[in-house]
């Protein structure tokens, strides 16, 4: 799959803005965390899973736990995108 980290971040950002409707586009940064943006546990799951589905990626569930920043999410997605 030909997808780079910027494209992954763009998808994550779009889904973040969709779920967290009171967050501004400039607030979503690669080194920020969803928790800091006000996402609760269900919001985080929803943003990550919606993005995975949009990117047609499959990642084992345990790998999705404990991701602290959007950069960690992007790196994980990228690793699987490159392999798939």
């Amino acid at each position, binding site marked *: 799959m030909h997808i780079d980290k910027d494209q992954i971040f763009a998808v994550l950002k779009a889904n973040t803005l969709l779920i967290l409707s009171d967050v501004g586009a400039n607030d979503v940064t690669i080194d920020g965390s969803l928790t800091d943006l006000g996402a609760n546990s269900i919001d985080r*799951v929803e943003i990550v899973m919606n993005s995975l589905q949009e990117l047609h990626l499959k990642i084992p569930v345990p790998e*999705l736990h404990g991701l602290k920043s959007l950069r960690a999410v992007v790196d994980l997605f990228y690793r699987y995108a490159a392999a798939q």
Partner: protein
Amino acid sequence: MTGPAPRVAITGMGVICSIASDIDEFRAALRHGRCGVRQLHSQNTTIQVGATLRHFDFDTWLDQLSSTAAPLFKRARKILANTTDSTKWSVCSALQAVLNSGLNQLEADGLPCGLIVAGSNLALNYTAKNWRSFSTSSQFNPRYAMSFWDTNQLGCLSDILSLHGPGMTVGAAAASGNAAIFQAFHWLRAGIVKRCLVVGAGVEFSELELEGFALLGAAFCDPVDSEPDKACRPFDRTHAGFVFGEGSASVVLESLETDYPKPFLGEISGASLTLDGTHLPEPTVDGEVRSMQAALSAAELSPNQIGYLNAHGTGTPAGDRTECHAIKSVFQEHVYQLPVNSTKALTGHCFSASAVIELVACILQLNGGFAHPNRNLENPIDPEMHFLRSEAETLAAEYGLSNSFGFGGINSSVVIRKGIVDGGRN
């Protein structure tokens, strides 16, 4: 109604779970800290462990009643010939409880008996199987439109047991069992019924629900190649999520008249049900504190009078931490000598059935003078608390408290008093 509200006695109980198919087996399994968690071999879900009823065959179990309780046996066999597993588990524990009460017929005295089934969304795997069959071949169970309802359990149980009093299912996620006890407690205290059967119904999860729990990070989903019985580790520093279980437990509750001569197994002294005001899965210290305090208040007891605590203790890091803080907040210095254990380390988390299973566990421990081991607890997250460890301990307590907390901020606690029993009943 005049005079004080009647006391509420437990006069019969039954249980089926991964470590026992009756009360005697359950008592022995608790005492020895046996664990029913085993490896699953599921292709479609991350979850690879569960405390399932893999060896339980309902028809074989029912056959043993053919000579001792022939009328019940005949009705149960006819009504349950083609129904959900959850309903069969419920009938198994309910018939045990009725027979254990010594009544055989709950309305023999002409008074209508209440029936409360704890749980909602009980037949999820039944629905999943029927949907798969329907979507591929247009075939489905002809009884489907009746059987998918949770309330079908009310119908089956009331038909088999000839019950005609008030009846309902009570849904409160993992706190359903305690919520049902809470409801029955108030029916009995208000004089609405003199007798009530409470059935903690087990949930049949499909792989979809299990994967959903894994995604939330609530369920244990590490790979397990060996020692699956070590997966569920409530209050241990290595706890890594709950392990689901299958099972059911039932209790017969009766108004305890002042000079009631009949031996009874225990009492429900108080019960509570409170909301956190949240739709999220995370528990709160404040909500759990209010739950325990409300149950103590209903029982008119102080925290120091509680001699044993059966924790919700699922083994999720957030849940265990929160419950520890809440217990310490309620019991203060008394926590140093308050024995605490979690039955879920042995039975897995049986969700809507769990609180009734744990109520039965409380009664067996209070009356039997022992507290069961906290299996897999080696390094407690809070060394100040008096957690049971790998061995059972002697217990000399008059009152116990049992917690159950559900997703969506649903909290419920029950205060239980030990019983006055003769040799044949316990």
